[in-house]
């Protein structure tokens, strides 16, 4: 119930913000993401990931409020020797061997952020993303490949700051991607450190 309430508040916030007439700027940016598996993801892969990137656009609909969308990609991998039970209706038995485990997470989120500070200087921001995560997990052992690909609902609270960097803005932030489980899968959550650079479309194009 609390989750539903929070979602309604966020959606209302985005809709209200989108109707504002104070649009200043359109920012688009690129962040490099380093991630740490958390919660149930950590049971599947415990290695940190240095393979991640996000493309994002943010539009200031009020002096201190931005909304936008983002698309990311994070790749986790791990090697481990495991003994696993397999019972898939065709085969029932035990398989041992070196396992190559992977998780590819592609979050497609709508975001909203509150900013504090002067636009010409450093600013802090706090916000959240809300949307869909396409999560492709794979286990390879020997010549056996077990894929599990699903869409998940999730949200991503984020806290960070940005500051002027030439004619652009540099960004450092932390995100926690909470990805709900789906049809018996684990929740595939992970914490993320983002380092990026954002550009003003308005400043550059006109």
């Amino acid at each position, binding site marked *: 119930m609390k989750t539903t309430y929070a979602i309604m508040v966020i959606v209302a916030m985005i809709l209200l913000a989108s109707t504002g007439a104070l649009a200043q700027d359109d920012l688009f940016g690129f962040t490099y993401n380093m991630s740490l598996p958390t919660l149930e993801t950590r049971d599947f892969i415990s290695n940190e990931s240095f393979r991640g*990137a996000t493309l994002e656009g943010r539009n200031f609909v009020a002096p201190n409020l931005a909304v936008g969308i983002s698309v990311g990609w994070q*790749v986790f991998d791990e090697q481990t020797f495991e003994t696993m039970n397999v019972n898939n209706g*065709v085969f029932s038995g*035990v398989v041992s061997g070196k396992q190559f485990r992977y998780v590819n997470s592609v979050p497609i989120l709508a975001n909203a952020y509150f900013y504090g500070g002067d636009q010409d200087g450093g600013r802090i921001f706090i916000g959240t993303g809300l949307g869909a995560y396409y999560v492709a997990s794979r286990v390879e052992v020997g010549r056996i490949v077990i894929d599990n690909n699903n869409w998940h609902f999730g949200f991503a609270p984020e806290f960070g700051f940005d500051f002027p960097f030439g004619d652009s803005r540099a960004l450092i932030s932390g995100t926690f991607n909470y990805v709900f489980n789906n049809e018996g899968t684990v929740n595939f959550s992970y914490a993320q450190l983002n380092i990026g*650079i954002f550009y003003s479309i308005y400043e550059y194009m006109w």
Partner: protein
Amino acid sequence: MKEFKASRLPMLVLAIAVVAMSAVIPSCYPNGPESPEDFDIIVTAFDDDTDFNQFNTYALPDSVPVVPDPENPNQPKNQPVLPDSIQQLILSTIETNMNNYGWTREIDPNTNPPDVTLVVGVSENDEYGAYVSYDWYSYYGGWYVGWGGYGAGWGVGYPWAPSGIYYTQTYSYTVGTLLIEMLDLKNPDTQNMEVNALWVGALNGLMSGTNSEQRISDGIVQAFIQSPYLNKNQQP
């Protein structure tokens, strides 16, 4: 309209970042298998309706034949590809593990029929499933045929394998699979002329790559470790 601004530093940073990311995320599945050893797997399966307490003695062959490709019937039978030292390593490792699990080997199975027999072979075929429907035991020559009363015309049944498509649609084994099967000699299916397989161990990939002897030995040990129901010392 404002003049287009060409700030060099941020664009350079972005360009470097894009190039770096293209190197950092080369694929969805990085750091995958690189050597034949990475493909080694040990598969075991058993009939979970079986009470292994009813079996105590076993027979073991004295050689490990090569099972030819059934699609290539002209291939000569009993063509050995394994050195004697490897064959003896396989058989002695199996014997040690069976004995450690409380089983007793029957040295003269023709005189004293054992409760189960172990058949051991090395496949040359990509598809293990082929052996389910193929009389590969005949490749033991005189060891299996005519032994224990189950001679020509008898086959091996897998009543616990779901839908009769066991393995065939699940796994594809490359050349070099060591197969170990435990056959029930106490409860033959005389109507269908079959002795049923109670336990199957398949060690895939161990015959290629380097350090094969250690990998074979470790693989056989692992097959028994992951089959605790065979351990008569721990059964209630």
